[in-house]
């Protein structure tokens, strides 16, 4: 049949030849139907995505080189003025450092813990579905709700976490006062919500690891820990890269948790936990009403995400190709996960 993509088959397997003209839809209408339908079916996606996704992203560049007020609308062309203004603001740099710090506190422990939880779930469990659903509960709690709940757990006075610290003889931590402590608290909220989700992704990858590798390792006398580091981790490498990249894209856009960490929601009195997206929000919809400068921040953040994504990709690929695992195993693991 002319309309259909022939099934891909291995060369030499003798796939039956399709007779392309036999069905002869001689009617003109039928031919147009066949020709146009594929485009018609993909058009809603491309049209809506162009209008609501691509165009705004590109138009951000246009707004960023103009003076543009939330209320007054478009003003004069100002070149790179907005960018230099933003880059000259200490708050921008502080927010950027905060974002990177929160991102590191959330992504590194998250990936490690998620792999460990996945390894636990990968054991031969009774009621496996129950445990899998259990770790996924936090995913259905809205980030704003998580933020309010953890705001109480991390309350400076009479919060549960400080209470527990006091109980074991440690001093209270100023979760809303100390800069690093506030980053840890916010990162904990992100980790809480995404840990189980990522653990399930890793679990799926682990289950795709051929079981005979483990059997071979057992025969060689490898214990559980050795099996984990020598087989499981290298085999799920492609998935680790995938999770790291998606958590980068998400981690650099943290907003909800910060907005509700205190009642004002702009990162604290000294912007100690203000993130870049909150900074962007404040520029546009806070007191400044400057859509131009906010657009400049959006573009800078966009470049940063692309840059870190690339670095991530290169570093993880370097690690994956340099630690002595043979090409064949890598190939099979990518096939399993990609």
């Amino acid at each position, binding site marked *: *049949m002319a*309309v*259909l*993509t022939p099934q891909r088959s291995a060369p030499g397997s003798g796939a039956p030849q399709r007779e392309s003209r036999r*069905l002869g839809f001689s009617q003109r209408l*039928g031919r147009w*139907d*066949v020709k146009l*339908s*594929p485009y018609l*079916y*993909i058009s*809603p*996606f491309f049209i*809506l*995505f162009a209008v*609501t996704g691509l165009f*705004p*992203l590109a138009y*951000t560049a246009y707004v960023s080189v103009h003076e543009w007020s939330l209320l007054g609308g478009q003003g004069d062309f100002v070149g790179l003025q907005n960018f230099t203004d933003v880059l000259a603001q200490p708050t921008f740099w502080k927010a950027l450092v905060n974002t990177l710090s929160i991102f590191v506190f959330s992504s590194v422990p998250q990936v490690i813990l998620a792999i460990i*939880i996945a390894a636990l779930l990968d054991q031969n469990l009774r009621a496996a579905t129950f445990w*899998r659903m*259990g*770790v*996924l509960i936090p*995913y*259905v*709690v*809205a*980030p*704003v*709700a998580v933020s*309010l*709940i953890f705001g*109480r*757990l991390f309350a400076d*006075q*009479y*919060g*549960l976490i400080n209470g527990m610290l006091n109980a074991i003889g440690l001093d209270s931590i100023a979760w809303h006062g100390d800069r690093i402590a506030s980053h840890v608290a916010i990162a904990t909220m992100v980790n809480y919500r995404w840990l189980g989700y990522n653990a399930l992704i890793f*679990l799926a*990858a682990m*289950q795709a690891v051929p*079981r005979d590798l483990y059997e071979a390792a*057992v*025969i060689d*006398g490898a*214990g559980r820990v050795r099996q984990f580091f020598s087989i499981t981790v290298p085999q799920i490498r492609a998935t680790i890269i*995938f999770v790291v990249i998606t958590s980068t*894209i998400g981690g650099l856009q943290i907003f909800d948790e910060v*907005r509700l960490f205190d*009642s004002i929601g702009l990162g604290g009195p000294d912007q100690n936990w203000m993130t870049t*997206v909150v900074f*962007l*929000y404040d520029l546009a*919809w806070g007191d400044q009403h400057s859509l131009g400068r906010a657009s400049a921040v*959006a573009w800078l*953040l966009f470049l940063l*995400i692309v840059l870190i994504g690339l670095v991530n990709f290169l570093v993880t690929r370097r690690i994956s190709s340099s630690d002595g695992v043979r090409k064949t195993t890598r190939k099979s693991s990518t096939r*399993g996960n990609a």
Partner: protein
Amino acid sequence: MSSVAVTAQTAGSGAAKAAARRRARKAGGGPNRRAGWIVYTLLGIVLLVSAFPLYFTLLLGSSDPVEISRNAVPQWLPDMSLFTQFQTVIESTQINFWKALTNSVIIAVVVSAAVVLFSTLAGYSFAKLRFRGRGPLLVFVIATMAVPTQLGVIPLYILMSDLHWIGKLQAVIVPVLVSAFGVFWMTQYLSESLPYELIEAARVDGASMIRTFWSIALPAARPAAAMLGLFTFVQQWTNFFWPSIVLSSDNPTLPLVVKSLQSNYFVDYSLVMGGVFLVTLPLLVIFAFVGKQLVAGIMQGAVKG
């Protein structure tokens, strides 16, 4: 492994396997052994940590606000006063709880249905139909999955404002009617699970293209479509960033209610926590029924995506 090879050479492969089995039993490893109590204990802790914040919400919701400001854990069991908080939240004129609930349902349902329909249409086209430009267009879809389109909020806001949509639900709904991930997901699924023979049979029977899609592709896509719908639903239900920009507290969604709870009543934490639980409850109930599918969806997505 070398010892097995040696055994296999000297005594045949059957003997090697038997020896391997013996050794496996001695080493106590093996992937098929039942998990020990340590594994269950550790998982139990993980589960406890996952569920405790929600339980804590119930506790604070049942406690006296004065007690909350004096004690980390004011009481260990929730009680009936929780319902007083629920009532206050629901009846408050500042909160607009029913309106928020209705809005959240409308947004989540409409967006999920649209994403599923448009993704299945496009996915069917990419997976099973041949047309010029198919390859590059599909690559384009995949590439856009990594682009943080969130960062286009400012022009999107200008657009919504020009359309006079600020404060209206369509400002939240229209920008998320399609999803690149959804198209990719359905393309993957349909290319593997929809046989060409079925489509051909329908065409031979004289079905038009859209009829073929409707009666053949759509039913075949049902499992993947259900999962895509579920994830979109959860995503929209919990979404805060964009709705908080274009909607106001007169016409809120549930996450916006959470925000206004905090700014209106930030002293009365028992009320805030009661409200937080109330807002979380619908999705928890849904989760009880479809949690299994969500787990399966994440795990399939991991293998495919």
